[in-house]
């Protein structure tokens, strides 16, 4: 006669949810049943859990109030109106790539020009090593570069680039990465907590709201 697999009380309790829901394999189920036959405490637990779960069927289903849909439609309309307003502040994600791409091209062109224009002392071709100071000078200053013409519409002065990147990164994030940190009474939450932490972004928002 084959020996039935045995479990400890601890194992019985750990596996109990799956046992009740029928998710255990045949051998495990048999082991749980065998332990229940042998252990009064675990058997009592099993019976009491099953019976109490049946009592859940007495719970009534709560229906939404009569004006639930009407109020929801009002909120949706308000949300759409609110959503349109802050868009002026947001830099569209593709613009970031265009700006940095143009900046890279301008930098490379500046370096190449200087290298080719500079006379070589030895007569040998000069390897195009970018000079650090020159690279800094060619870093994009927003008002001076052509990229400023294609800069997104901002109603406030642009902050330093890293802060702007924070804004853009947020706008490009997929919905699943949002943490829906909700507070009662707060609406139109398109701002992530990390974005609000950035002082320059707070300044942007404050300027926009006229504070």
């Amino acid at each position, binding site marked *: 006669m084959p020996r039935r697999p045995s479990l400890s009380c601890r194992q019985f*309790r750990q596996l109990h*949810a799956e046992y009740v829901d029928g998710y255990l394999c045949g051998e495990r189920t048999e082991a749980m049943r065998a332990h229940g036959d042998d252990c009064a405490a675990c058997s009592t637990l099993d019976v009491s859990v099953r019976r*109490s779960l049946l009592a*859940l069927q*007495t*719970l009534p289903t709560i229906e*939404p109030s009569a004006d639930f849909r009407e109020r929801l439609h009002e909120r949706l309309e308000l*949300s759409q109106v609110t959503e349109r307003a802050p868009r002026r502040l947001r830099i569209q994600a593709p613009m970031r790539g265009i700006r940095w791409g143009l900046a890279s091209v301008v930098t490379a062109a500046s370096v190449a020009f200087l290298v080719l224009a500079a006379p070589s002392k030895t007569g040998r071709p000069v390897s195009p090593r970018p000079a650090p100071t020159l690279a800094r000078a060619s870093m994009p200053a927003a008002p001076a570069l052509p990229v400023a013409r294609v800069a997104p519409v901002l109603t406030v002065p642009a902050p330093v680039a890293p802060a702007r990147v924070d804004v853009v990164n947020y706008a490009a994030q997929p919905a699943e990465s949002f943490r829906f940190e*909700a507070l009662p009474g707060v609406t139109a939450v398109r701002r992530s907590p990390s974005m609000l932490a950035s002082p320059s972004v707070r300044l942007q928002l404050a300027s926009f709201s006229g504070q």
Partner: protein
Amino acid sequence: MRQAALKLEQAKPLGRAQLEGLDDNALVTSYLGGASRAFDLLVERYQTRLLNFVYRTVGDRERAEDLVQEAFVRVHRHLARFDRSKKFSTWIYTIASNLAKNELRNRSRNPLVYFQTMTSGWEDEDRPLEFEDTNARPDDEFDRKHLRELVDAAVKRLPTHHREVFVLRELEGRSYEEIAEITHCNLGTVKSRLNRARSAFAEIVQPAL
């Protein structure tokens, strides 16, 4: 091809009967393709379920309605970014769950505490007196009403983390994997919490059965 499909959907407005036959993800596609009724249908499908889930979690019916509405607003706002390879129900439940948890977190910081959401440990002195009343009347309706109240109170008394898993499993019928995704826990934690929640629930309710 996707654009062609969307254009086709725009060209032929779907009737309500046709929309009702679509699954959730297809409704999302239809809505984004211009079928405005599709979102109403999603609301209709989930409003009661979400309301019951959130109500059982936060214990306040009015607030639960506000939170469910907020969940729908957020779904509507981010619908275009929803990954349709995933389950819509998991997504919307996750949003509702996060809102409910934030609500409870804010309440715990607020000096005005809602009694329904007090989550004390399993101490005998915390049990309300009416549960110890063993004078059972023969009237069946009274017994059923009493049991309903008992069960309702027992669910509310569960610790927040256990209650959430318990409600999602026992009342909403979510799978362990879905619960793990909604509550941002691993599978082992879900099973452990479910075990504890069931034991705690049985401990309260069993004497009355």
